[in-house]
């Protein structure tokens, strides 16, 4: 029986940068458990010899030729940015989260 704990939901919310209140956590954790349960019922339908599927269509090798196509101008690219400086996206300082 799949179950997701309150701590796991809290951790996932943290990773996804979603700020959840205690009340929300209390509410969402059991809901997610129900969702996982429902999804898990697929396992009953799928026999062991059926490989997990990630794509709905049986397609492979959909490629694009290596040819340049016009994109956005810098103005267009930056038009939705809350802040712009030196033709760059200005973002809040990054602390301890270096990739």
């Amino acid at each position, binding site marked *: 029986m799949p179950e997701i704990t309150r701590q796991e939901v809290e*951790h996932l919310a*943290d*990773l996804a*940068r979603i700020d959840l209140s205690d009340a929300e956590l209390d509410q969402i954790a059991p809901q997610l458990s129900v969702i996982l349960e429902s999804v898990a019922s697929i396992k009953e339908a799928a026999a062991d010899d059926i490989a997990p599927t*990630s*794509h709905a*269509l049986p*397609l*492979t*090798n*959909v*490629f*694009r*030729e*290596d*040819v*340049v*196509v016009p*994109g*956005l*101008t*810098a103005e267009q*690219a*930056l038009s*939705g940015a809350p802040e712009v*400086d*030196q*033709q*760059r*996206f*200005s*973002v*809040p*300082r*990054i602390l*301890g*989260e*270096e*990739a």
Partner: protein
Amino acid sequence: MSDTLLSFEESLEKFDPAMGLEVHVELNTNTKMFCGCPAVFGGEPNTQTCPTCLGLPGAMPAVNAKAVESAMRIGLALNCEIAEWCRFARKNYFYPDMPKNFQTSQYDEPIAFDGYLDVEIPARSGEGTETFRVDIERAHMEEDTGKSLHVGGATGRIQGADHSLVDYNRAGIPLIEIVTKPIMGSREKAPEIAKAYVAQLRELIVALGVSDARMDQGSIRADVNLSLAPAGSGGLGTRTETKNVNSLRSVERAVRYEMQRHAAILDEGGSILQETRHWQEDSGVTLSGRPKSDADDYRYFPEPDLVPVAPSREWVEELRGTLPELPREKRARLQKEWGFSDLEMRDTVGAGALGLVEETIGAGASPQAARKWWLSDMARRANEKGVDVADLGVAPTDVARVQELVDEGRINDKLARQVFDGLLAGEGTPDEIVAARGLEIVSDDGALGAAVDKAIEANPDVADKIRDGKVAAAGALIGAVMKEMRGQADAGRVRELILERLS
């Protein structure tokens, strides 16, 4: 705060190093990995973007066929298996260098896996070279990130910055990440093997023509994982990952530094913190980045917007057929053809002159003459100018022509150096310089005879010795004639004329 280090020798007495090297290669495709934006270096900020590489809602990625081909060629050149079927995956993290909030990469299904690169290093015996096999775990496809400028900090570093400015021109440029298996048993050669691996991997990439392969511009980047285990234990200790290692020399230095730093901590009974560290080019140390943490929970999952890549075996074999002669094999073949000793070959390669020597020989010079000019004269001049010998501005065809003039007896080695002076000063072709500077050797008996007579007259005692049969003394008279003729006399003919007159 500086780290305590154990000496390199003592660290080896007590511990065995294990390394893992991750090399990112930026491909030189025309376009990015998943969109048609140009993948070129150095454009004005944010002028090479589109909704896909900016991660705007609704944008759909499409895989660059050329990038897949380059990835497979790299894999094949590294003796890897090519996956029959593999997928892209999302690596989820929040960091503004990736506007999508995930990097499209490959997770447990890399395009290439289980290969090796045989790395040549100077032999432990001190003579010739030996081979060390570095096993390749995988090579996978992913995309590069944007570039951040950190503003407000003291040194442009992330620590203490107020905010960051991001340019997404680089975001989405195709990257191939090549990961080794743990490199064990390298012992005191560890720093050298790490450097040789990156250097020879770079050569391979150059031979394949799939990347600009410029470490200084970041088109090849290395991360060095290192751990120590008690000597002889055969185990693996806790590792650190050192990033920002952007030159071959730094690869060697970073391995050495981390070995000594780990050894000092372990020797005092401490334990290594598993963390990311940053190499400091100027001070030659590594600085702590951040510990591995929850943020490394990337929650990979198969990329739903891209269908799997399933290269047919025909395609794989077709690409295998396009592989160039590998650098190591080529070196072995050329050494044999040229009759170079191991030392001569190593010096040639070490001076970055292999291609130049090859082209000079191709243009007609003998292997020894080509080597002589590039490794003595040209290497010295390049060194004086502080440039690579390849960037000196002298073409292999020019060197071959100068040698041809020497072989024809029209100039000698000394005059040849003046021709090279002229070439570097942009005075034209070797023939033009010889003519303009009046460098051609005089072998005309009239002019030479007069100079010989003058020399005999000026050095009667030497002349007497030669008359007495001391032929070796002729050298002094030849010198006098050469001086008189400003070095432009045919020394062989001068000798004949002296001996004719004094016998």
